[in-house]
């Protein structure tokens, strides 16, 4: 049976499950939940004798540090990064992501976000890209994005070893079928329903016959998170660790 947990812990455990088999997981800036999931994955793999490696961009922990930005992108180009996380101000049903802005008339759109960062490259090069967006609404999950920062799928002649693998939100977990260029609902988080997901999603998606509930983290997982992951993730993300676990960085 499962212990008490918070949404963040549910998501971290679910993402860690998706990361199975990834030898090198890279995590971008401002990604505490994916970062924690990568550390949970690594902990489990190490207990099983594996050598899973995690790079957290922006951390000062040497073990997780990349050799600068050029090295990060180059190593992805060499095929040395197995998993990465992307998000989007808008995400559509073909897994296109938009980090640039809302509205017609680019570049003078009515809302302007920061920009595409490394998405237009990493989405192609990293085999398992997990899309992560906490706000699941018709504002964020749209039929068609207003600007394609990075496309979800590519024509068969375009070199693309990587691409979208799953989409994790505050409501549910989708898997992405690259052949069909469609999301399929994988599980709905406890306390939420398929109808709620449908109501809040602007794109069409597949629904398997029996929709499962996202597995709640078990007691052992919660112990690992609270005792092992929390003090480590507190280095790059002190506010997050304090808020979720009341924990400060390890000395």
């Amino acid at each position: 049976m499962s212990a008490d947990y918070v949404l963040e812990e549910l998501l971290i455990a679910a993402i860690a499950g998706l990361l199975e088999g990834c030898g090198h997981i890279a995590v971008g800036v401002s990604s505490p939940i994916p970062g924690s999931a990568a550390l949970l994955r690594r902990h489990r793999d190490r207990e099983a004798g594996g050598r899973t490696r995690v790079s957290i961009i922006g951390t000062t922990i040497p073990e997780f540090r990349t050799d600068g930005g050029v090295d990060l992108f180059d190593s992805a180009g060499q095929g040395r990064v197995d998993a990465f996380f992307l998000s989007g101000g808008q995400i559509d049903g073909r897994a296109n992501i938009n980090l640039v802005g809302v509205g017609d008339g680019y570049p003078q759109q009515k809302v302007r976000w920061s920009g595409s960062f490394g998405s237009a490259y990493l989405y192609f090069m990293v085999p398992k890209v997990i899309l992560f967006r906490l706000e699941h609404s018709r504002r964020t999950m749209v039929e068609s994005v207003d600007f394609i920062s990075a496309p979800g799928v590519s024509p068969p002649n375009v070199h693309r070893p990587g691409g979208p693998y799953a989409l994790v939100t505050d409501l549910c977990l989708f898997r992405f079928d690259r052949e069909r260029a469609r999301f399929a609902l994988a599980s709905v988080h406890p306390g939420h329903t398929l109808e709620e997901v449908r109501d809040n999603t602007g794109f069409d998606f597949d629904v398997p016959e029996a929709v499962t509930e996202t597995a709640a983290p078990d007691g052992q997982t919660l112990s690992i998170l609270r005792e092992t992951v929390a003090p480590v993730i507190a280095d790059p993300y002190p506010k997050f660790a304090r808020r979720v676990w009341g924990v400060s960085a390890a000395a």
Partner: protein
Amino acid sequence: MSDVLLANVDRLAAEVPDGAKVAVFKAEGGCAAMAATAALIRRGVRDLHLVTVPTSGLQADMLIGAGCVATVETSGVTLSEYGQAPCFGRAVKAGTVRVIDSTCPAVYAGLQAGEKGIPFMPLRGLIGSDIVRHRDDYRVIDNPFAAADPIVALPAIVPDIALFHVPLADRFGNVWIGRHAELKVMAHAARKALVTCERLHDGNLLQDETLAPATISEMYIGGVAVAERGAWPYGVTGLYDDDADRFAAYAGMAKTEEGFVAWLEETVYGRAPAVAAE
């Protein structure tokens, strides 16, 4: 060379002509030359073509807000945990700054082409992104080593000036960049680098076997000025932390044009905040 060492950041800012293509470095790690940025605003520089390597934050936002920038070529301008970059957002929407959207590895690859003196660099990915659709300076070519394998060719980026902040420089104009290897690419690609440093190193950095590998030779450096706490309100790893209060203040103030002007008065011109008439 002794004439590389300049008196102060204002003297350094004078080396940046109006209309220059200026490469600035991302915010994290303390390499954003913020004291020099204030000096550029004071000097009233105009029409800059800003290239953010590969992103920027407060630095680009302030330069844009102060009207110094005609074009910003960027993979992202953001205040990170303090939210969207307000002046950047306003200026893009108003059309008062031309934005050229890029993606981080394309900025690096363009600079690497500049560094190698080659006209372009091929790069994987990108195809199908609206970035490519809107960039008439990119070309999609055929990989000459395979059939029907399209690949993007990115033109070389050759900034007139690379502007950044480092922990250490010496009197010969050599600068020590620590872990920020991307600064070498930036400095090599640019016609010259203008650099602020926390302090001067005694002796020649190139003579120190442990410091030399992370040192950019004076051959690439057009000017160095000492600027203690020159990255503030950004922190410099190992020296001082981000000034969270000032970032929060900026994020609040810069939401309006008036608030941004007040920010400039306080932090760029060093004038006390105007007391509201009561």
